C-alpha cells in the first residue's frame, strides 16, 4: 500500500489529479458538471474504480481498507474529485454506516458488509427522520419488537435519500419506551428486499427524485442485524455524525459554484458587455469569494486543530454547517441572477435519476442551475436544521 504520510499536500493533490485524468471518462465529467442529483450507474462505476486503488473509503480504519490519509488529504481529495466532475459518491454507505460497522459491527457483519460497501456493490439509505421526528430526532417512533431471533419492525421513515435505488437501509428504531426518549433507540441494518417494505417517492421542488418515504409493516429482520447493543443506537448515531464533523462545510461546492458563476458571467452579455466586466457584479462576486476564503480558512483551522488533537472552538461542526450551507444558497442566488431569463427553463432530472436528464432549450451553461438552486433549499434544513445548529452553538457558548 502506498505510504501517503510522506507526501506533501501538493504531491498528494497532483496524484489525485493524475488519477482522475487517467480514469474519469470525459463524457461522465461533462454529465456531472451539470447534474446535481446522483445518477446510479456512474456512482457505482466510479466507486468500484476508486476501490481498486483503495480510495473509496478514506475515513475508514486501515484494517478495513482505509488508505490512512490525514484529514487534510481527505479534504484535498474531496475537493479535487468534486471540481473535476467525478460522480458524487453515495455517503450513506461509505461515510456513515461503514465506520459504524467498523467500530461496532459483529465479525459477521464486517465480513458481509464492508467489502460490498467499499466496492459500491451494495448501496445504502439512511433511515433516521420520521414525520414527527425531524429537528427533534429522538422523538422517533418506528418500533422494532424482539420476537425470537428476529425483530419485527413497524413504522415509517421519511426524507430517505436514494432509498429507491439502494439495497440496504440502516435505521434508528425504538426498542424501548422506558427512560429518556434517547435511551430506547437501537441501530438496525435492514435489507430493502425484505417483505413488508414500501418505498414511496418524494419529488422535490426542482422536479427531481432523490428523497423517499419508507413504510415498514411487520418487517421481520434477523436479530443478528442489530449493531452494537440494544438501546444504545443513539450513541452510535451521534458518533457517526461527529466523525464527519468537518465534511459538511461544503467548501468544494462553493469553489465549484464560484467557477461556474464566473463562467456564466463571462458568457452573459448585458447590452453587449460581458457581465463579468460590470464593476458592481465584480464586487458582489468578490464579496462572496471573500466569504468563501474565510470559511475555507475556518475549515483549515479546524482540520489542523483536529490533527493536533485539539478540540478547538467547541461547536465547530455546527458553525461549518450553518455558514457552509448558507453560502451555498447565497452563491446560488448570484448564479441565477447572472443568468437572467436564461435560467428560467425547467431542467428536468426527471426519470428518477436512473437515466440521464434531457437538455432543455437555451444556453448549455444554464442547465440545472436554477433546479439546483431550488433543491439546495434543503441544505439548511436537513442534517439538523440551521435553527437547531444555532441552538447547539449558543447552548455550548452560554454553558461555558
Amino acid at each position: 500500500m502506498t505510504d501517503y504520510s510522506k507526501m506533501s499536500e501538493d504531491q498528494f493533490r497532483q496524484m489525485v489529479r493524475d488519477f482522475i485524468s487517467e480514469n474519469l471518462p470525459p463524457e461522465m465529467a461533462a454529465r456531472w458538471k451539470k447534474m446535481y442529483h446522483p445518477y446510479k450507474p456512474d456512482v457505482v462505476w466510479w466507486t468500484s474504480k476508486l476501490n481498486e486503488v483503495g480510495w473509496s473509503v478514506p475515513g475508514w480504519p486501515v484494517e478495513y481498507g482505509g488508505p490512512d490519509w490525514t484529514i487534510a488529504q481527505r479534504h484535498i481529495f474531496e475537493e479535487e474529485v468534486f471540481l473535476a466532475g467525478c460522480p458524487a459518491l453515495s455517503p450513506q454507505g461509505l461515510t456513515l454506516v461503514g465506520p459504524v460497522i467498523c467500530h461496532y459491527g459483529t465479525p459477521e457483519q464486517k465480513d458481509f458488509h464492508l467489502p460490498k460497501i467499499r466496492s459500491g456493490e451494495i448501496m445504502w439509505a439512511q433511515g433516521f427522520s420520521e414525520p414527527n421526528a425531524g429537528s427533534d430526532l429522538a422523538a422517533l417512533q418506528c418500533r422494532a419488537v424482539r420476537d425470537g431471533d428476529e425483530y419485527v419492525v413497524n413504522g415509517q421513515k421519511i426524507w430517505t435519500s436514494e432509498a429507491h435505488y439502494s439495497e440496504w437501509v440502516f435505521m434508528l428504531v425504538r426498542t424501548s419506551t422506558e427512560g429518556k426518549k434517547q435511551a430506547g433507540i437501537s441501530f438496525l441494518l435492514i435489507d430493502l428486499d425484505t417483505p413488508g417494505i414500501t418505498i414511496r417517492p418524494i419529488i422535490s421542488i426542482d422536479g427531481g427524485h432523490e428523497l423517499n418515504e419508507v413504510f415498514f409493516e411487520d418487517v421481520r429482520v434477523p436479530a443478528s442485524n442489530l449493531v452494537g447493543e440494544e438501546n444504545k443506537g443513539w450513541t452510535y448515531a451521534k458518533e457517526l455524525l461527529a466523525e464527519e464533523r468537518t465534511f459538511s462545510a461544503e467548501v468544494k461546492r462553493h469553489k465549484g459554484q464560484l467557477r461556474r458563476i464566473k463562467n456564466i458571467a463571462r458568457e452573459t452579455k448585458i447590452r453587449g458587455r460581458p457581465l463579468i466586466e460590470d464593476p458592481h457584479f465584480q464586487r458582489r462576486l468578490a464579496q462572496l469569494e471573500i466569504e468563501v476564503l474565510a470559511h475555507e480558512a475556518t475549515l483549515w483551522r479546524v482540520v489542523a486543530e483536529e490533527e493536533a488533537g485539539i478540540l478547538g472552538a467547541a461547536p465547530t461542526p455546527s458553525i461549518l454547517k450553518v455558514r457552509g450551507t448558507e453560502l451555498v444558497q447565497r452563491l446560488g442566488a448570484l448564479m441565477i441572477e447572472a443568468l437572467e431569463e436564461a435560467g428560467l427553463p425547467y431542467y428536468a432530472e426527471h426519470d428518477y435519476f436512473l437515466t440521464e436528464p434531457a437538455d432543455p432549450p437555451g444556453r448549455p451553461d444554464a442547465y440545472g442551475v436554477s433546479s439546483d438552486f431550488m433543491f439546495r433549499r434543503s441544505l439548511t434544513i436537513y442534517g439538523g436544521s440551521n435553527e437547531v445548529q444555532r441552538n447547539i452553538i449558543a447552548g455550548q457558548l452560554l454553558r461555558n
Partner: protein
Amino acid sequence: MGMKVLPTEEQVMFRDAAARWVEQEAGSGADMAAQWGQFAELGWLMVAIPEDQGGLDGNVYDNAIIAEELGKGLVAAPYVGVAVTATQLLLALAPERAEAVASGEEIPLVAHVEAGQGGDPSWVETTATQAGDGWSLTGTKTAIIGAPLATSFLVSARTPDGKIGLFEVAADAAKVREYLLFDMRPAGDLVLDATPATLISSDALSAIEFALDCEHVVESAEAVGVMQTAFDLTKDYLNTRQQYGQLIGQFQALQHRLADMFIELEQARSVVLRGLDALVRNGPDRSAMAAACRVKVAQAGHFVGAQGIQLHGGIGVTEEYPVGHHFRQLIAFEMRHGGAGAQVERYASMMEL
C-alpha cells in the same frame, strides 16, 4: 401622500370574484384556453379599457387587484401579459384592437425581452427589414409566459432608421420554441428568422416603455399575492406543527423570522401601491418607481419564499406541498426583465444624484 390606498367598492367586488374563482377553478385542471374564456366573461380582460372602446373604464389598479388574487392561486394563464402589457400597448398604438382582446377573441402577447437586454427596454437587437409591402423580422425573443396560448405576438424590432418599431406576427406563422419555466408555467421563445410581420407602429419605444412599466407593477402585485399565500401557509404551519413537545410557533427565533417575513410582505404591498400611483400620474418618476417596485417585491419575495420553506422544514422542499411552488414562482418573477439586479441598475440610472 395622496397615494391611493383603499380599494373602491367596485374593486372590492372584483377582488372577491377573483378570490372565489381562484378557490373554485385554479386547481381544477381546466386548460388555459377554457380559463381564458372565463376571464373574458368575468370582464377581467377589459377592466383597464376605456368605456368608448368597449371596456369598463378602469385602470391598472383594477388589473392589480385581479392579478394579486391570481397570484395567490399560482394561476399560470398569462393574465398580466395580455390584460396589462399587450392591452396597454394596443391602447397606445392600435386602440381599435383592444375590444377583440377584451372579449378573449384575440390573445396577443408582447415579445420584447431578449437575452442580454438587462432590463433596458431600449436595447433591441431584433431587426426589421422591409420586404415588399410588408416587413420581415430576425432575432429571438425570450421567456414569453403563456406563449402556447397566444394568437399573435407583438414584437419590438429595430427598423432601418434606428427606431424601435412594433410588429405583429401571427402565432400560426411563428416558430415558437415552447418550454416550461421551472415554476411549471408554460412559456416559449419566439425564434424569428426573416419571419413575415405586420407593422403596427414605426416608433413604439415610449409606448413599450409605458406598457412594460405597467407590467412591472402589476406583475409585482401578482407576486405579492404569491407571497401572501406563502406567508399564510407558514403562519398556519407554525400554529400547527409540534416539535420538542410544543408548537414550533412558540420558538422565539421562528417568531422573529415570521415577523421579518411579515415586514417584507408589507413593504412589498406598499411599494406596489406606490408603483400604481406612479403609473396613473405618469410623471417623470414613473419608470423609476416601476423599477423600484420590481426590485423591492422581488427581493421581498425571495426572502419570504425561502423562509417559508425553511420554517416548514423538509416538507417545504417537496412537490406535493404548495409553499415551494410559491417560492419557485417568486424566483421566476425575480429573474425576469434582466433580474432584480438589473432593475436596481435601472433605478440607479434614473435616481436623482
